[in-house]
């Protein structure tokens, strides 16, 4: 699913004259999808990949049929949760969504969602519902440009850029350059931009453009003492001088200015203040929108989820949702697939917290450290293509935050040994570290190794992307989780 190279930009208009008519292409793609399912394939994007091959213009043709158009969310971290939160707000407004909610965020996944919806309105609903149909797409950061070109979204939400899977995405600067071109030329130039003011790389995208709305955090009580090790973007992109950070919230997100050329963080029109973080359980904050402020009780943990909720609120606000409605919907939201999701295994609570790059991992570790007591962990490090073949990143993540806080940890996955070593060098005693490569065996062993009665029985699973999918499908088979992988 997340396995193909970023695109070489072939124009969808280069259509050979002999192309299949769109309905026939959709029918053929559906058949391919059904066959793949019969053979046990779980990938949601198979029919979309086939459709794109048969009709490279399919996404743009199908997107044009959406009465409310499309909106796009991209980021290194948080795109699935942000779009899930935005979906929950918009659905309560009566908007009917075409949404790649399973996180298949490359062209195949987007096309699959669109073609699924193309057959739906006649069956499902009233005329009213069709009229309010909106495309909500999370988009892989490397595919932003071609997908924006094809979807012509009315709003583009860009949340953050962190170092992630360098073997697959390349360097951050290169992605930022591509994003800059995407939002200043072609279809992207016409969209409204919602940008994270706190990320210098993202904020810069709005500097020479109108129709930009910024969101950010305004609360120094949640600031870190200094830029963490995994921080990138430490230098001004205009003049190269080192930024001065007056507050660091997360990774290289914060309140910054350039002492040399005067470039500074834009003032956010949508912001979160008076933030409270309640361990691995929840958080709350005051959400300020251009048209009012409201208190949000978010059932998701950590500052990273405050950022996700803030981006979702900014998007919903741009689509005319009222602050009260936004707060109510956020208060009812649930964790997205594998992101702080709470399940049960052999009567033990199991919380799955996806870790896939240094900054994301640091936020999970910081959130875990907020939770009192000694923790039981199941760390799963895979090095499949979709995880990044290069596992270096675990040495950039601050596992030191867990030193002295681990009762027992099992390391699993294709590179279990490297994770075990990382934990040893982070200060976790080797007597607390166990290595067991196969995930099923590791899960069974972790579930069976219980802390003494009276102590918190929660097991925290920290899997990489493909490890999370494997773990979840194991749990689905055991009946412990819903297979929301439709």
């Amino acid at each position, binding site marked *: 699913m997340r396995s193909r190279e970023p695109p070489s930009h072939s124009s969808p208009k280069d259509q050979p004259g002999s192309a299949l008519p769109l309905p026939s292409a959709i029918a053929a793609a559906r058949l391919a999808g059904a066959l793949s399912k019969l053979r046990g394939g779980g990938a949601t994007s198979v029919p979309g990949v086939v459709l794109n091959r048969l009709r490279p213009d399919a996404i743009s043709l199908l997107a044009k049929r959406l009465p409310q158009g499309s909106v796009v969310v991209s980021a290194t971290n948080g795109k699935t949760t942000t779009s899930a939160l935005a979906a929950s707000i918009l659905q309560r407004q009566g908007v009917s969504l075409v949404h790649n909610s399973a996180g298949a965020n490359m062209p195949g996944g987007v096309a699959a969602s669109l073609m699924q919806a193309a057959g739906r309105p006649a069956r499902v609903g009233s005329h009213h519902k069709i009229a309010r149909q909106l495309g909500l797409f999370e988009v892989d950061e490397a595919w932003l440009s071609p997908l924006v070109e094809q979807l012509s979204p009315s709003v583009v939400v860009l949340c953050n850029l962190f170092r992630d899977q*360098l073997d697959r995405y390349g360097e951050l600067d290169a992605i930022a350059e591509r994003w800059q071109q995407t939002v200043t030329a072609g279809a992207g130039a016409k969209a409204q931009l919602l940008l994270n003011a706190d990320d210098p790389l993202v904020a810069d995208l709005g500097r020479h453009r109108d129709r930009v709305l910024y969101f950010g955090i305004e609360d120094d009580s949640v600031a870190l003492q200094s830029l963490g090790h995994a921080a990138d973007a430490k230098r001004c992109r205009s003049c190269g001088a080192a930024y001065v950070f007056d507050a660091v919230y997360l990774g290289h997100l914060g309140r910054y200015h350039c002492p040399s050329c005067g470039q500074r963080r834009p003032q956010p029109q949508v912001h979160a203040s008076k933030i409270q973080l309640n361990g691995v359980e929840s958080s709350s904050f005051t959400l300020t929108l251009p048209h009012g402020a409201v208190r949000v009780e978010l059932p998701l943990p950590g500052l990273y989820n405050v950022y996700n909720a803030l981006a979702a609120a900014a998007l919903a606000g741009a689509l005319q949702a009222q602050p009260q409605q936004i707060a109510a919907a956020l208060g009812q939201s649930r964790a997205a697939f594998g992101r702080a999701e709470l399940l049960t295994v052999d009567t033990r609570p199991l919380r799955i917290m996806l870790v896939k790059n240094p900054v994301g991992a640091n936020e999970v570790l910081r959130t875990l450290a907020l939770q009192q007591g000694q923790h039981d962990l199941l760390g799963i490090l895979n090095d499949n293509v979709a995880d990044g*073949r*290069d596992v*270096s990143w675990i040495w950039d993540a601050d596992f030191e935050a867990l030193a002295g806080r681990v009762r027992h940890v099992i390391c699993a996955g294709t590179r279990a040994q490297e994770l075990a070593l990382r934990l040893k060098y982070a200060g976790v005693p080797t007597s607390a570290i166990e*290595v067991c490569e196969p995930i099923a065996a590791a899960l069974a062993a972790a579930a069976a190794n219980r802390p003494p009665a009276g102590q918190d029985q929660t097991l925290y699973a920290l899997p990489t992307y493909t490890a999370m999918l494997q773990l979840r499908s194991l749990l689905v088979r055991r009946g412990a989780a819903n297979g929301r992988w439709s």
Partner: protein
Amino acid sequence: MVVSDSNRTLRVCALYPDLLNIYADRGNLLMLELRCQWRGIRYQQTNCLLGEPLHSSQHDLIYIGGGQDRDQLLCARDLVQVKGDALRAAAEAGVVVLGICGGYQLLGRSYQLSPQQEIQGLGLLDAVTVRQPGPRLIGNVAIDINMDSASGVSWPGPPDRRSHPDSASPRLLAGFENHGGRTHLGPRQAPLGKVVRGFGNDGRSGFEGAVSGSVIGTYLHGPLLPKNAWFADWLIATALRIDPAQLAPLDDALEQQAHLAARRAAGVQ
């Protein structure tokens, strides 16, 4: 015989750790630090940043990591203009200089980014790097560095058989490489090793890295030292100018497992 380590200090200088750190270079420094600490060897790290002078006589080991193109360009200028003389003096005095990825490229004579743009390097290694059209060289890699005669470097003999069951096999370094530049060695420049799996310097020559005296350059990150604890110890000993056999043994069970897993990832049993 193991010497008493309590009065020893390993003095490490990290060059531009704020900019040249992209492939988790921190892991390499952490390995050096803790493996010293566990043996009672004091570890002292100095960070030398852009514009700051380097004092060649105050360090036993100088570390240069890799960075993004823009940051590497910033550092290259500073490295040659501000720190060049001190680095040459250090290398001549036998201080260990380890450059990884971008750091390796800068230890060479030049890095040609395009026909119009060439970055000058330190010239501590007789190597020239050229960015050529074509894909980056990315993947797991294993190299055999049993090349004593070529490099003039004496790698340690077979380690303790109990903790290193593979001691009969060649001296392997395992890691991950990800570089756009192709590095070509001069005719008399010794490589660090022979490629067993992966691309190496240029994807063609079959060689990886370069070594001249106490100056070592390699594309292996991943990071390098956690996957090759024996090499971390060799660096510590060489920097302290003692025989690696004199370092107190450590419980390296997890280190050895991680090494074998990294080798397997590269396709070497």
